[in-house]
């Protein structure tokens, strides 16, 4: 037992062992027990400086100390009210000790950030070998302390960012030499404390972000428009990398570039109330800045009142407070029975918090919503923005977060509770859980929105018929779909075969009501929208026709309700976009089943359009006409179908698409042996002779306007005829 460590080590080296390569199968394990005892004894000595404490013990201490702080506050309050008290001095001392105790416990929960960095050198080594780049990882400020809970949460985002820096940021040695940089690429990680936050800087001296690539990608995915891009600085353009699904990596590499990049990093960091931003980028390198709170145990929260109860909303998720209501200029509107708040030309889903929590039994009266001025807290969770209606807003307060008791854990709306200075216990709202209850403005809808924005820039307008049916909410349908507007006297409506019909131009026209439970007006006239499908008319009975407007179309919210495509803002009012095929599809199906025009039956048609709205609108029409429709959202998607060996009888394609446009796609298709003879019809919102000429040269058989349904059907039939003759 007296042997020194060095002697032991020497003994080990001299012991028979395997070759330098660790092939331990024949290792000798002689004299193990003896040395093990020695080594164990040594580590006991080394451990004397620290004590291992379970996390639960620390949490419990923390809770107890917060209780103590509250009790002290109450005592101080009592003593303050009495003029002369012998308790004054001892209480002052108690107060100080309590404060020190609180700080001490907080400190005990802290760990140096270097713990989160421990695995990074190894990671960088592996990356460097794998990528064939020489990389040096420089870490400073590792002693900066932060809460262990936060520490755990920051590990993954940090790893991801280091990976990104090594894979995308740093150039390979040849490019570095060409750029006049040292062959050794450098990634620097530094941390420092700033107020209640820890700031972590991730810097690499690589080529910086590729602004052109990001620009192109942002346009391609429809995140923005050219006009907007031109106004933006390079740094602002680069910030698109934080958008969901954004990756400019041309190929999926083993290391990064799976399209789930920086937005995941951002989400993870925002989850703990932190922020991540791109500080600078240039050909000399780029710097990211992560800001995270020191601790999750204490946070700033907005105290609000709902139905007489107080709640805390974490400050980091609160974007702004808005006075909602007609008087305040931010009217609340109802779409699909969902309240939405119009804020600076954006529709925000609105949640009545009292209703969500069941503090108010009935659903809110929309008229009441319109009249009273309410306060909406605008909350952001990830990219999801929504409003929460509250009755009163008090102030922002530093609160001590206490975990939810297991009894309440199934109530997902709350992330914890806290005790206010006056001793009352209030719940802390979990913005993520509340956000999950909001019908999300999903990426698809945002995309549609962006595409239509682009159309707006190009001055493409759509004629819309605005009308009311059933509810007060305005409804809209593209005018081009409607054959005729009629007013039919109610007496002329007859019941036949279980449905209402009316004599119309010498034939019976079935009538469908938008609101099923609504009876026709007892007297007078009934406005009807007449739609025609394969020469068979069908009427949609409505309450009143309001207006015809020509507006750039922007679908804002994707609706889940059948019969509604989405919500849009028209002339500063929210309207519901009606899905005509939902109401009349059945009738048209009936006609088709016995109709003479069966030429289209079972023919496979490929519809290529980047806009969700047009795909949604055209697909049911084409299906109703008997085609078997396959959808593609881009030229690339269509060509991928070609490569997969899919065959179609007809292709209908938009011309103006981000990425590869319809004309280029047509040229590629015409050059293909498999698809070369498939007839194609071009769709476009503009008609000018040059474009039509271009389409014809590219190989399109026909060219029709986007909203011109009859021409489209006609063109398709012409195509098929020609094709049939040729075949």
């Amino acid at each position, binding site marked *: 037992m007296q042997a020194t460590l060095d002697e032991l080590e020497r003994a080990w080296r001299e012991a028979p*062992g395997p070759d*330098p*390569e660790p092939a*331990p*199968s024949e290792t000798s394990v002689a004299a193990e*027990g003896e040395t093990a005892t*020695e*080594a164990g004894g040594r580590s006991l000595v080394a451990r004397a400086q620290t004590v291992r404490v379970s996390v639960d013990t620390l949490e419990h201490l923390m809770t107890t100390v917060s209780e103590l702080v509250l009790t002290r506050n109450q005592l101080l309050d009592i003593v303050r009210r009495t003029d002369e008290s012998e308790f004054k001095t001892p209480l002052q001392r108690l107060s100080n000790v309590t404060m020190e105790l609180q700080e001490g416990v907080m400190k005990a929960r802290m760990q140096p950030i270097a713990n989160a960095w421990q695995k990074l050198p*190894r990671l960088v080594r592996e990356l460097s070998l794998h990528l064939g780049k020489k990389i040096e990882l420089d870490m400073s400020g590792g002693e900066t302390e932060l809460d262990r809970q936060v520490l755990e949460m920051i590990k993954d985002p940090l790893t991801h960012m280091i990976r990104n820096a090594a894979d995308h940021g740093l150039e390979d040695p040849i490019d570095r030499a060409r750029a006049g940089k040292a062959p050794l690429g450098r990634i620097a990680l530094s941390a420092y404390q700033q107020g209640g936050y820890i700031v972590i800087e991730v810097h690499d001296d690589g080529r910086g972000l590729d602004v052109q690539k990001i620009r192109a990608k942002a346009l391609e995915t429809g995140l923005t428009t050219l006009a907007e891009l031109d106004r933006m600085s390079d740094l602002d353009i680069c910030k698109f990398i934080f958008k969901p699904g954004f990756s400019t990596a041309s190929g999926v590499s083993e290391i990064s570039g799976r399209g789930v990049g920086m937005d995941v990093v951002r989400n993870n960091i925002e989850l703990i109330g932190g922020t991540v931003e791109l500080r600078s980028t240039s050909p000399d390198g780029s710097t990211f800045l992560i800001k995270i709170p020191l601790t999750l145990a204490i946070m700033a929260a907005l105290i609000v009142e709902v139905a007489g109860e107080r709640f805390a909303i974490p400050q980091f998720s609160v974007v702004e407070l808005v006075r909602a209501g007609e008087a305040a200029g931010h009217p609340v509107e109802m779409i699909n029975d969902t309240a939405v708040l119009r804020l600076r030309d954006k529709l925000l889903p609105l949640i009545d918090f009292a209703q969500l929590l069941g503090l108010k039994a009935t659903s809110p009266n929309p008229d009441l919503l319109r009249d009273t001025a309410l306060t909406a807290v605008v909350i952001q969770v990830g990219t999801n923005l929504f409003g929460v209606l509250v009755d009163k807003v008090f102030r922002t307060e530093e609160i001590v977060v206490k975990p939810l008791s297991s009894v309440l854990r199934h109530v997902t709306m709350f992330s914890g509770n806290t005790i206010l200075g006056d001793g009352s216990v209030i719940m802390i709202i979990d913005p993520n859980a509340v956000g999950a209850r909001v019908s999300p403005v999903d990426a698809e809808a945002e995309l549609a929105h962006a595409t239509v924005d682009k159309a707006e820039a190009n001055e493409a307008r759509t004629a819309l018929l605005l009308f009311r049916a059933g509810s007060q909410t305005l409804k809209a349908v593209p005018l081009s779909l409607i054959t005729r507007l009629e007013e039919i006297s109610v007496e002329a409506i007859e019941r036949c075969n279980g449905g209402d019909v009316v004599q119309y131009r010498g034939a019976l026209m079935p009538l469908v009501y938008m609101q099923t439970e609504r009876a026709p007006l007892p007297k007078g006239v009934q406005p009807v929208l007449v739609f025609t499908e394969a020469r068979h008319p069908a009427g949609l009975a409505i309450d009143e026709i309001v207006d015809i407007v020509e507006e750039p179309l922007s679908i804002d919210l994707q609706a889940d309700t059948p019969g509604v495509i989405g919500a849009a803002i028209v002339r500063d009012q929210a309207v519901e976009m009606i899905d005509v095929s939902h109401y009349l599809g059945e009738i048209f199906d009936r006609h088709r089943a016995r109709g003479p025009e069966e030429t289209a039956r079972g023919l496979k048609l490929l519809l290529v359009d980047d806009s969700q709205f047009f795909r949604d609108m055209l697909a049911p029409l084409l299906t109703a006409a008997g085609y078997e429709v396959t959808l593609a959202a881009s030229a690339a998607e269509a060509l991928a179908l070609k490569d997969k060996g899919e065959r179609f009888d007809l292709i209908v394609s938009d011309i103006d698409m981000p990425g590869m446009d319809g004309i280029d796609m047509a040229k590629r298709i015409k050059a293909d042996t498999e698809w070369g003879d498939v007839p194609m019809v071009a769709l476009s919102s503009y008609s000018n002779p040059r474009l039509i000429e271009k389409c014809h040269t590219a190989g399109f058989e026909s060219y029709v306007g986007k909203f011109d349904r009859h021409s489209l059907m006609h063109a398709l039939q012409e195509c098929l005829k020609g094709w049939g003759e040729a075949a």
Partner: protein
Amino acid sequence: MDELLSEFLTETGESLDQIDAGLVRFEQEPNDADMLNAIFRLVHTVKGTCGFLGLDRLAKLTHAAETLMGQYRDGASVTVEGVSVILASIDRIKEILAGIERVGLEPPGSDAI
């Protein structure tokens, strides 16, 4: 699980993380004798404890890693491949430790490379 064993698991896990980082630094500065000694001692401690607890697979693996590092101490040139092998054996040790944590016993298997 045996209290001794669970104590061993936590402590060894920490040591291994240090070895990871230490080795990478050592690879960059092969002349840093202090660094090598520190790593050597850590591996040695892990090996000793494994033997004491009767964890044969771990003891053999750590012994092999230690032998290789012993050669570096004696002046053999540090190669990328060599360090990779040591790091790989440390990964394997972590796997075995995770196995012990699950079932309380060393999982069976061979570690011959």
